[in-house]
Structure formats: structure tokens, C-alpha cells
């Protein structure tokens, strides 16, 4: 088993008001899974992915990835753990605007140990079909191309899992479909585990497994 979420609760405190985002959910994700998380806005999709991606601590419960309980890690250990085991794709692409495409893809390797395998970077960029754009800046690319760069950046560290929070939300349906196709292909070719969230029921159908959230609880 790759990821094990056990009785995860997440509560946000806004002044005196408290919002419960996740109500004791438990999920297991296996190696090579291609999982879609669906649910209406405010159902807790992003919170679950953030907790799964170790970028947000649960209020209670355990997150175990590759047998390691993240509860016992400090911030630096968590940062290194994310860098080695988890890749992220964001709704708004979140590329570093000051860097070109190659540098964006190289970035997770550079912060790991300062070393870059140029061949690996070129191969990864090629695998998302952007070999001709390596020296372009993010603002010189279309939305679909930017999201491909984000995919390459997530892939380049060869992570155990790639977490994509609504990766198609800022793309038109055709481009969004292509991105999901790319993720499926990479899942099949590289056996990388993908977990993505979406509102789009059609895209959700392309996943092998679906988790449906409603009001912070898994309903399906």
C-alpha cells in the first residue's frame, strides 16, 4: 500500500467559528492507482489532497506514506519527503514565472541536492511534448502547455505519487481532456500513481477508481 489515511479530521478555525472540512475519513491508495476525487465545492477535496500531499497537517488522524507516518516528521523532513515521494500539479499551474521551462522542470532536482540530470530533464520535457519550448518563459505558453510543464515538473523527481488538485479547472474541455489523457498515459507507461480531483464527471469516468466526497465524508 502506498498511502494510508486513517481517521483524518481537519477543522479550520476562523475566529470563533469552526469549519469541519474532513470528518474522520480513511482511504488507502495502492501503487500504480489512478484515482479521481470528486465532489461539490466545499466537500473537502482539496483539503484531502493537501493532507495526502503533506502540505497541510490533519487536526487528527494519521497519514502513512510508504510505511512512514508523517506525523513524526518536522518541517524540514516533510519538505524533503515531499520532494522525494510526492509530485504536485495545481489548478493554476503555479510555475515559477522568473524561470524558463527547463529551469522550472529542473527546480525540484536543484533544491534536492543541487544536481541536475540534464538527460532526465530533457526526456521528461519531451515526454510531455514540449521539447521545442525549453527556453520559453511560462507566460509565453498557452494554459495547456503550462499545465504540461507542471506535469513534467511533478514527474522529473520520479515520485511515488502525483497529486493534482483540479488540474483541468483552468483549461477548456478539449485541453483538459488532453491533460487527463497525458496523465493516463504516464500512469500506464511509468506506473506512477496519480490522484486528481475534478468537478467534471466525464473526466472522472476516465479514472480507474473514484472517491466521492460530500461535506467532508466519503460517500462513494
Amino acid at each position, binding site marked *: 500500500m502506498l498511502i494510508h489515511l486513517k481517521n483524518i479530521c481537519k477543522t479550520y478555525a476562523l475566529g470563533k467559528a469552526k469549519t469541519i472540512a474532513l470528518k474522520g475519513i480513511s482511504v488507502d491508495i495502492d501503487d500504480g492507482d489512478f484515482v479521481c476525487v470528486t465532489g461539490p465545492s466545499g466537500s473537502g477535496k482539496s*483539503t484531502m489532497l*493537501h493532507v495526502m*500531499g503533506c*502540505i*497541510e497537517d490533519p487536526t487528527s488522524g494519521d497519514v502513512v506514506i510508504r510505511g512512514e507516518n508523517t506525523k513524526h516528521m518536522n*518541517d*524540514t523532513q516533510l*519538505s*524533503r519527503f*515531499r*520532494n*522525494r515521494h510526492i*509530485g*504536485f500539479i*495545481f489548478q*493554476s499551474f*503555479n510555475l*515559477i*514565472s*522568473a*524561470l524558463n521551462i527547463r529551469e522550472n522542470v529542473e*527546480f*525540484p532536482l*536543484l*533544491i*534536492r541536492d*543541487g544536481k541536475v540530470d540534464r538527460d532526465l530533464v530533457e526526456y521528461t520535457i519531451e515526454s510531455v511534448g514540449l521539447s521545442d519550448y525549453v527556453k520559453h518563459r511560462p507566460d509565453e505558453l498557452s494554459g495547456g502547455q503550462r499545465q504540461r510543464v507542471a506535469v513534467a*515538473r*511533478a514527474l522529473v*523527481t520520479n515520485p511515488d505519487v502525483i497529486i493534482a488538485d483540479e488540474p483541468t479547472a483552468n483549461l477548456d474541455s478539449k485541453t483538459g481532456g488532453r491533460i487527463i489523457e497525458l496523465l493516463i498515459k504516464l500512469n500506464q507507461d511509468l506506473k506512477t500513481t496519480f490522484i486528481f480531483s475534478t468537478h467534471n464527471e466525464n473526466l472522472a469516468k476516465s479514472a480507474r477508481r473514484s472517491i466521492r466526497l460530500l461535506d467532508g465524508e466519503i460517500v462513494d
Partner: protein
Amino acid sequence: MLYLKLGLRNILKNFRKNLLTIVMISFGMTALFIYGGSNTQMFKQFRDMVIHEQYGHFQLHTKGYSESGRKKPFDYLIKNASKIEEQLLAEDFISFVAPRLHFSGIASSDTKSTVIQGFGGDAAAEGRMEYRKVNAGKCIGNTDTFCAVIGERALRRLSASVGSTITVLSNMKGGGISAVDLTITGTKKSSGEGDIRNQMFVLADLAAVQELIDASDSVDTLIVHLKDGQSFKKAERQIAAFCNANNLEYETWNNLALFYERSRQVFSMNEKMLTIIILIISVFIIINTLYMSYMSRVREIGTIRAIGTTKKQVLKLFISESIILALAGCVLGITAASLIGDVINGLGGIYHPSSVFNEEAYYTLIKPEFTKILLYCLLFTAVSIAASGVISFRAMKLSIADSLRWN
């Protein structure tokens, strides 16, 4: 390298905002460069004047003079002064020696008398020091005997003038009273009415004073001037050895020139205050710029944190940006200040009216010391790093998830 590259790119990306910071740092640097450069030169000139015109580099006396010499000056005379002077002049690091024999007494003209202080000195040596500057007449010359330069107030009190003769009455070494007639060759140029030392002072030729107090070939002070470019510390070791061998003691110019030291401390304090004020202003400007930069990149910072950048690495990123900003500001400031300095120096320097430092108006060039410029650069860099620390602390307080939700 990654952080510097990313820092530089971020600065270039928000160039207009960052330019304001760079310009502000450069203004500060320019102000410090010019103020510090002018001060450095002013005190270099002041130091040279103090050494060359007043105290020399070292003053030698008989051992014990500094403790009891004022009470019993005749007990601490340097006997065989001309022989010791010769020995000193034989040292290759010494330029010249000015022997002095101090006395006090009463000066009388035909109609009036006044109390005076004075000393006998070697005309050639004194002519190279402050007594080369006289208000009227001329300094005593090598061939002049029984001649004197006299302070302006003493001259007025005696109703005397250049060319007239005064009689100086003083105690002799053995306790008796003696008198000599001195012809006034010139009056001492003085920096002000309050300068009693110059106003009521007499410089007479050494032989006349030695005869007056019955102390042939004796002096109480030997003022030693070093040759240009000599190491002061090395010379001090040699002078100390010489004094030990000849039952003498010495004082250095900076121990004697208390006014110089106090003035330097006051100006140094002013410079420090100016530096602190400029640095405080700079830190707020840098914080403001980095904060604006941070606010426009909250999500980007959340992203790089999510993909594995540690807090320490984020700190390094901000520090890199701040160092680049500081160095760019310093380089621009030094360049601007050098150009301004060249123009001012080309026009003759900064004008200073006559003051307690100098009897005449003078000009100082803008030539700061390299170490001072380096210090300013380091201070601006340190301040920038401190500012980036404040911003980094803020960036680290925001959770990654909150950063990613930032709009």
C-alpha cells in the same frame, strides 16, 4: 547559485519596484561616501598639521619629566642636548629634530611690562613648524641671535612693534634672576583672541634662552619628526629603545594632541549617527520592497514549498535577493559618489572656513578610505539580510496550503 539566479531573475522581473530600493541604497551610499571621504581627508590634513606644525611625531624628555617636569623644570633638563640631537639625526628614519627650552618671566618694553611664557628654539627647525607662519615680520632666522617672535597680545601690551627690542626677565636654573634683550622679528599668527598660548608667547633663539636661564647646551624637549612614509609603530619601537639607552622618556603625538583626538571622536560619532540613520531608513525601504515582492509571490512561495523547498532554502532565496539589491545599490552609489567626488575634487575640493582646526580657510578633497567603503557595503548588505529575515519570517508563518489558496 540557484538562489542567486532566481533572486536576480525576480529582481529583474519587478525591476521598477526594485530600482527604487537600489536608488535609495545608492543615495545612502553616496551620502556616506562623500561625508566620510571628506572627513577622512579633513582629519588627515588636521593630523598632518598637528604633527608637522605642533607636536612632531615624538617628544623626548628626561625620564620623570612627564610626572614632575612642570613643577621642577630645571631638574629635568636634557644635558648634552646637541650630542643627543646628533645621535637622533643619525637615525635614518628621522627627518629633523626641534630642541626646545621653555621658560616664563616678565617682558618689558621701554614703557610697559607683561607676563609671558616662551621657549628657545632652533631657528631652522622652528621655521619648519608652526612658527613659519607669522602675522607680521618674519620668523627668527638661522643667523639671528637674541631675536624673538612674539604673540600679538603680548606685543600690544608691551606697546611694541616688529623691530623693537624687549627685555625678558626670568629665573635662572640656580635660582637667581637674569635678563636678555630680544629684538622682535615677527608676530605670531593666531587663530583667535582666545588663543592665549599664542597671544602671550615668545619664541626666542635657543642660545639666548640657554643664556637667560644659565643652562648651556640644555633643553627640556626634543621634538622628533619622522621622514615621510616611515612606519610610526616601527619608529616608536626604535625611539623607545633610544630613550631607554639615554635615560629619556617619550610621548607620542596622539597622546599630546588631545584636541585632535576629541575632535576626531566627535566627527566620528557624527559619521556613525549619519550611518545609523541612513541604515535605518534603508532597512525600512528594503523591507517594503521585499514585502511587496513577497506579496506578489505568496502563491509561488507556497508552490516551491510544496515541491520540497525547505524554510531554510526560502530564507536563502530572500537573502540572495536582498544581497543583490544591496550590492547593486552600493555599486551604483559608489559609482555616483566617485563621479560627484571627481567633479568636486576637480573644482578644488570642499571649502572649509578658518576654524579651530586651521588658522586659514582650506579645502578638503573627497577621498574615502577603501576599508570604510568596504565597511559601508558590508553594513548595507547586513541591513538587507536583516530585512530579508523579517520577510522570510513572515513567509514562513503562512502555511503552504494557505499560500496556495492566496489570490
